[in-house]
């Protein structure tokens, strides 16, 4: 199980790209951190979620 934004989900073995796609989130407007480390955008395809990972997906919206 992977904790994503505080919620335990069965995403073990998925890549960051797959996780974002499951969440219907565009990769252009997010920042993803796993266990307090930023995941570089260039590594979304190759970074695989592991059991026990703490993932934060920050979605940005417009306005400022």
């Amino acid at each position, binding site marked *: 199980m992977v904790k994503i934004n505080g919620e335990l989900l069965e995403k073990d073995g998925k890549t960051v790209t797959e996780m974002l796609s499951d969440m219907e989130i565009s990769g252009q407007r997010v920042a993803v951190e796993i266990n307090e480390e930023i995941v570089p955008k260039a590594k979304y395809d190759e970074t695989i979620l592991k059991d026990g990972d703490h993932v934060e997906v920050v979605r*940005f919206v417009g*306005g400022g």
Partner: protein
Amino acid sequence: MPIPSKEEMYRALEERHGAELQKKLDIASVAVCGLGGLGSNIAIALARAGVGKLNIIDFDSVDISNLNRQQYFPDQLGKPKSDAMRDTLERIAPYCSITSYNVKLTEENIPVLLKDADIIVEAFDRADQKAMLVNCVLENLPEKYLVSGSGMAGIAPSNIITTKRITKRFYLCGDGVSDVENGMGLVSSRVLICAGHQAHAVIRIIAGEFDI
């Protein structure tokens, strides 16, 4: 009337904030990226609090559509925001060391232009640009504190705007959902609330108070 001396202004701040906090504010260096509704209000709050060094950056010029929420004056229309904000900050805090850049921040220039700041404030307008800055800072300048704002459009209640600590050095303010692209305009009071959250997060970090 002549303006007060540097010492007089410092003493007035010290009386209000305490000597220990004022010393920390005085030696702090903060970069404000984007000088729109968030950034112009954040920069003013930090200058008033006595932050010693401010680096303010925007590539845009003052437009009539900004005046509903951004800290500019009708007689500044057409001026680069970095220049207009610098003029205002110099009136508010004449002894603050201000660096201003009239440039668009990119993945190439962010590591160079922001390298001297202790704390970086993301105050952009567009969601993709917010994400670009946040990713770029977290990847390239991991020793910096970063305070970002997302979700403050419309007139939803004040109290759903919060400050979250996403990771040790990354704070996120806003309601996270109120998107200007959903047809909700930006309203001065609500943008100010988010700007206040961001400015206050910066001041707490400077004070060494990292909890939210």
